[in-house]
């Protein structure tokens, strides 16, 4: 009897301590794919590459939303193309534009070694992966291009940066983990050699991926940068920044060769018939169709001109490019407006202070059609109506009516800005890369495609490299090809300034070239009269309507209270104190 009691109690106890550990503790998260599964599964390997493509750096015009250090259209605001009303923009609030850039950094930061690591991890894992060899070869080549492109985006900001081509391990010795900066030249050479190494493994016909032509375009651009830096820059810090000037021509040659391999045979290249300048909407003798053509070039996915582009789906992976107009993220400057020539090739400068017109667009009738494709003005058709961007009116009795935020619209008028608190600060609105949606797209709800490389740029790259190499015939030829597509008079002679000017108007605003061009030419620290930025006041020409003569006039003046400041040091962004604290082996760029 006593035994039974003990048995009973033991049963009770063991019942309470029954083990269902297996079932309860063997839980794993349901949303994670294991390491092992990824590398031998073709669709997961593809998905990994999809993620990498999704992370490549593109102009800030195409940001889905504001990010930590950038505003949509930021590159255009950094040079003389535009300004913005959004003074909460980090570049304003931190005074970067006005000489406030310090070793703390914060301007146009891009230090994406996470992406570099992700590429390195991929390249290494491909050596052991069991997916088909042909796919491995193509994907590895593409990922090496993504890596080279990423290094280019970094070297153009900081100069020499550490080249890391293998995924490091936490257990690596400190001497390997705490890397030094490579020389700027080494980084450009790495980009060049990577392109050469994988050129023949790349696909040929997908504008959304790195193809052979995409790789050549990168080479065309990167080598042009290297050439300019060698020619115009200074070697400092034992070559960590700057490239010896004797190497300039070899880089220009490399760029020239790469461009030639893309340019169609009909235009003297060896690129076959794959690409041509987009002329789909041009009607002969109709000047406005040239403007339409240039405008549509940027809103149409995968045109014949596009070499590599990033596409978007609103709301899924969207951008906010069209915020540009309504929200006036980019208010084009008078400097940019005046840069557009007249169709006959004469100066396009308008003396806004002394102009009075009944219809503002009349003023621009004979301007380079690219002007009207890029910049929107009072009186232009938009959104089913006519834009009015009157800063104020002057009544018959001479009284000035209206201020910022309180404005008067003409009958059936569409006021240019409807979001926020006022109009464009300069009197101009951005039209390039802005879709006429009729409303301001919410963050990430726009799908303007982003051409990372297009043939138009390659022509200009080729012209510039040719000019630097003394091949002026080629230089003139390619600039004129661009001008004839634009619909303006041909040049008869060529020089570097004309090429720079052509780049300015062809690649303006959201394409985000000018800021970087001014830097590589070492023009940025020059005064405005010499084509630089230092001391530049962004100029406005705001329209106002005067009832006394029933005409529009322009209020000309400085938009920003202070002059822009571009110090020599700014040709390289600071490595920053925090990165140097994190790795004392990184030497800071000169001047910070």
């Amino acid at each position, binding site marked *: 009897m006593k035994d039974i009691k003990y048995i009973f109690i033991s049963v009770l106890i063991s019942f309470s301590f029954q083990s269902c550990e297996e079932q309860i503790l063997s839980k*794993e998260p349901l949303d994670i794919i294991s390491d092992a599964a990824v590398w031998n599964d073709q669709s997961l390997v593809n998905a990994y590459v999809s993620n990498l493509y999704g992370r490549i750096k593109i102009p800030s015009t195409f940001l889905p939303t504001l990010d930590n250090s950038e505003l949509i259209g930021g590159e255009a605001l950094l040079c003389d193309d535009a300004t913005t009303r959004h003074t909460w923009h980090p570049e304003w609030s931190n005074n970067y534009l006005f000489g406030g850039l310090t070793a703390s950094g914060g301007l146009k930061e891009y230090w994406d070694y996470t992406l570099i690591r*992700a590429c390195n991890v991929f390249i290494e894992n491909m050596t052991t992966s069991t997916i088909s060899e042909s796919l491995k070869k193509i994907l590895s080549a593409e990922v090496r291009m993504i890596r080279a492109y990423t290094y280019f985006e970094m070297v153009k900001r900081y100069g020499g940066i550490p080249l890391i081509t293998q995924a490091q391990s936490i257990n690596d010795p400190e001497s390997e983990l705490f890397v030094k900066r490579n020389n700027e030249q080494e980084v450009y050479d790495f980009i060049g050699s990577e392109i050469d190494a994988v050129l023949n493994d790349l696909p040929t016909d997908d504008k959304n991926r790195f193809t052979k032509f995409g790789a050549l375009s990168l080479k065309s651009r990167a080598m042009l940068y290297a050439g300019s830096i060698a020619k115009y820059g200074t070697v400092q810090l034992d070559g960590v920044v700057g490239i010896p000037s004797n190497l300039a021509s070899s880089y220009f040659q490399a760029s020239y060769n790469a461009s030639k391999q893309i340019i169609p045979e009909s235009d003297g290249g060896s690129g076959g018939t794959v690409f041509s300048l987009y002329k789909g909407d041009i009607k002969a003798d109709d000047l406005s169709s040239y403007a339409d053509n240039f405008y549509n070039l940027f809103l149409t996915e995968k045109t014949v001109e596009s070499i590599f582009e990033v596409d978007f789906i609103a709301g899924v992976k969207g951008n906010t490019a069209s915020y540009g107009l309504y929200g006036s993220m980019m208010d084009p400057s008078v400097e940019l407006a005046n840069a557009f020539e007249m169709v006959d090739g004469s100066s396009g400068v308008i003396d806004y202070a002394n102009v009075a017109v009944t219809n503002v667009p009349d003023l621009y009738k004979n301007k380079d059609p690219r002007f009207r494709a890029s910049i929107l003005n009072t009186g232009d058709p938009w959104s089913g109506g006519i834009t009015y961007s009157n800063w104020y009116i002057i009544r018959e009795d001479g009284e000035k009516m209206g201020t910022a935020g309180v404005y008067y619209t003409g009958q059936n008028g569409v006021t240019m800005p409807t979001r926020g608190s006022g109009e464009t600060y300069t009197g101009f609105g951005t039209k390039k890369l802005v879709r006429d949606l009729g409303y301001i797209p919410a963050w990430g709800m726009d799908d303007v495609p982003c051409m990372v490389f297009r043939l138009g740029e390659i022509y200009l790259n080729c012209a510039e490299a040719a000019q630097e190499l003394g091949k002026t015939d080629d230089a003139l030829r390619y600039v004129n090809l661009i001008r004839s597509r634009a619909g303006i008079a041909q040049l008869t002679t060529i020089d570097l300034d004309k090429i720079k000017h052509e780049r300015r108007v062809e690649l303006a605003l959201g394409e985000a070239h000018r800021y970087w061009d001014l830097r590589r030419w070492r023009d940025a620290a020059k005064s405005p009269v010499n084509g630089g930025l230092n001391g530049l006041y962004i100029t406005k020409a705001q329209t106002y309507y005067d009832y006394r003569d029933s005409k529009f006039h322009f209020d000309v003046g400085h938009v920003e209270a202070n002059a822009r400041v571009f110090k020599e040091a700014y040709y390289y962004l600071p490595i920053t104190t925090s990165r140097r604290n994190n790795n004392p082996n990184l030497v800071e760029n000169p001047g910070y």
Partner: protein
Amino acid sequence: MKKKLKRSQFPDFVGELSKVTCIMKLTLFLILLNVCVAFSSTYSQQTKFTLSGDNVSIRDVLANVESKSEFRFFFNNALVNLDQRVSYRIEEGTILELLDQVLQKNGIQYEIKDRTIILSPKSSDEPGTAAQQKRSVSGRVTNSSGSPLPGVTIVIEGTTQGTITDPQGNYTLPNVPGNATLQFSFVGMKTQEIAISGKTAIDVMMVDETVGIEEVVAVGYGTQKKVNLIGSVVDVKNDRFVNTPVANISSSLAGKLPGIVAIQRSGEPGQDAASISIRGFGSALTIVDGVEQSFDQIDPNEIESISVLKDASATIYGARAGNGVILVTTKRGKTGKPVINFNVNSGYQSNTRMTDFVDSGEFAQSYNDALANSGKPLTFSDYQIKAYKYVSGDKAVVFTAAEKAQFENDKANFANTDWFNVIFRPVAPIQQYNLSSDGGNDKIKYFSSLGYLHQQSVLRSGDDTFKRYNFRSNIDAQITKNLYVGFDLSGRIENSMYPGYAIGEIWNCLINDVPTRALNPNPAYPTGLGQGTADADISGTRQHITKVFNGSLSFNYSVPFVKGLSAKARFDYFVVPQFDKNFLKAYNVYNYDVVNDLYSISRSGMTSKTNLTEISQESTSLISKFILDYENIFGNHTVKAMLVSEYTDYKNQWLSAYRTGYLSSAVEQLFAGSSTGMTNNGSENVDGRISYACRLNYSYSGKYLLETTFRYDASPRFASDKRWGLFPSVLIGWRLSEERFMKDNVQFINNLKLRLSYGQAGVDNIASYNYLTGYNFSGGFVDNGAMQTGIITKGLANILTTWEKHKTYNAGFDFDLWKSKLYCGFDAFYKERSGILATRAASLPTTFGASLPSENLNSMNYRGFELQLGHKGRIREIEYSIDGYIAWNKIKNGHIEEADYSKSDVYTRLRYQQSGQWANRYFGLEAVGLFQSQDEINAWPVIQDNNNNKTIRPGDIKYLDYNGDNKITDIDYHPIGKGNTPELTYGLNFNGKWKSFDLAMLWQGASNYGFVSPGEQRPYPYNPSTIFRYQLDYWTPQNTDAKYPRIGLSGFTNNKYPSTYWLIDAYYVRLKNIQIGYSLPPRLFKSIGLTSCRVYLSAVNLLTISNVDNFDPETISSSSDYVFFPQQKTISFGVNISL
């Protein structure tokens, strides 16, 4: 358990009343089949009679009683003379009153056993004097709500003679001397002494002893007598929070429990929970009847008590207990006649503190000033300002003749709209109803409750409402002699309805609405942005529904052959489905042309495309628990032991869908949207936990107390070799008052106890699966028109990740003097918290391309004390109690992973180094007034704007250069005050009773915290937007003695730095609750069958005293935004009815 053990000591009725018992058994069977049936035939000695008769025989009287009640009389004709004639009159009296009148006077004594009344002649051997006459005393003992109390000990004072009440609360004590005093005692109740003074029937109502040492307190997996508690445990019983008209019980805890820091940031219906922390620790584990869940939305009427385990006493919950444990125990049935309670409470709420916006005149003037200061052209002409002032009621306005003529012409253009008043109303109704019933017999007991709450907000549209339905049914049944079964069901539905935008957005919109904008007469065309946003008809609806269902079955088996051993198994199924529906309508805001009565679109509203999002989710937990309990007394040694094993299985899944492209906003359903652009999403996650625990209590003679616990816990969140942890605790106590030398010498000390405890616990809901590497779906790109989904590494893993470790030390004492004339509790604590997840600082260079996973690196420590004092007394007919507490806590960082500041200068270190510093600090600059003139700025040696003070103007804030480098930089920031968590909290309770009136008051407060008013530094945040009236006291050359710096659009950078200028070292004291009740005299409602009826007037947050002037002192909002909803002041009227 205790009660059940005592029940076996009941006198055995079986011999006499076997038939009844048999029926009872049958009844029990029926009860189990159908609970409802079981309670329909309960009888009671409380049954009221109205009977009268003149000169009738006793026999006839008894026959009459038998015919009208279930009572039966037993007697021996030979001994009892029932033919005596009597006259009697009973109005609404009990059987006892009747029998006293009819029998007692006529030499017959009686004894009631169940429904049987046995009559016998009065003992003839009684001595003659009344004092020495012995008689049988009987009666009934009930609790304060009228339910019978079984197991109450009744002893004749000075003797060992006594008895215990039966399950119906009745007792009979034979042979009681006429001058004796009876002592009624029961665990948790106040002991009462009543002189019988010749009476033979004495009914007693026992009252709860709120601070009594016999009180029982819920502790982990069981209860503990307060007298034996060694841990720092505080609790609050139902009567302290029921009848308080607050929707969320968490917000009624402030001031009631020492050591609880409760801060209520919002008063929005459905969002008004207080954030509760124990002693300033992180969020506590809350357990309701053994299931981990929030208690916020439980109907207060369902709750028996809330107890808080603050120190090592929480260790029994191991890896989850680090931040302390809050245990909520719901009510269970008590033996006795069914008691039905009905509570209704209806009142109105309004904002505790709300500040005014400017009117048109003030706006026009100050907005122009702001524009001028910001270098912008002015919006309003002098004439316009005058006109706006005039329409705003400013009588001092003097128009010129020309202006007067113009004003006559265009006065319709000048509006003065109080948008706050358009959107908000002064008061909003709140109603609460609860119907509950409890009762039972010795075999089955039940408690059931049904509650309903309807709360509206002060949003005038009435579209912001919260409705809650609660139900609970707790049933305990004795199946066999040793087996008890508990069956609990509870659930609730919470339904929150808001307009399309949450209150934060509405506020932001309201700030946009300037008073000069005319209000539209047609509500379909809102002219104010906030107006549309706050109205569901215009902006759409946002609905959130939470349903909670909890079912539990428990078995409790008293092992028959081992005294004191019982085994318990409990299974809980807990399911929480939630549903969100967000229908946002596209709408526009209009300009209203008053003169022509025309509307034109001025801008789009907050939504540009009508869209609908629905999210449905469900989480389920399955919890099984097995407990072995042992309790026995061996001479002076009392031993209690408990063994627990607990298994938790958890799963959560959700599904969401989105559509847009609605043709019309009339059909708020998914199908009505376009399939273009529709999206859906969903996921699942799982969790689980295994825990074993044991607790041992030992007490020697009730003097020396020892408790020790061990908990062994495992969680799948950590790697298999890191998932198990052992959490021990040891607590010792010494009841000095039980020592001979104290008992003999200092008799006024009723209780004096010293307590010490140490325990280790953890927090494990951190870093789920941090030990695994792998890939998540993320990102991707568009390839030929189709989105290609990507995968991305989830980062480096840390296989060593484990729970946070908390070591708690507590020392305290309690004393009770002169029978609760003065009682006190004191606890001091120190806690070390280590293993807080952090990423190693300065470890990998950024070029590595991956960050280190978080590791258990950081530590913090906590210290503080709680002091509680109370007093109970009686002044004539006024019974009262008063108790209060003060609690203080302060948190210090231990090790924090950060850069090495050892070589930095003292200011840099002060600014950035966190290790070893006090937490809860506010960093900023020290303001030293406003610049009064340009000369003063020119002479000021400190560069404040990094631009030679060129941007500084008179009326800007002047700062002290803290580090002496003559410029204001980030390094000049230093601790200038406390953070926003109060370090000192206090509460004061008063309860009083006079005749039928009762009064309860709760004062509560907090201090030693920093407060920054929402948006104060940023007047006119948008262009255009409005400001608060108090902000008008800004600096101008004419108003140099201003409170605020010069005004500008969005303020000026120099004036927006966090500084002493804006920080308030805040305190508040509020009358959290006051209640005045009146119990109606029974004669008023007896005839309609009620047993008690109390009406009361109650108010919450009636009075707030604080140095925070313009906002509720608990409000938190960022300094740049206006996202808040003040706490609510509620005044309500309520009725409690029992039958």
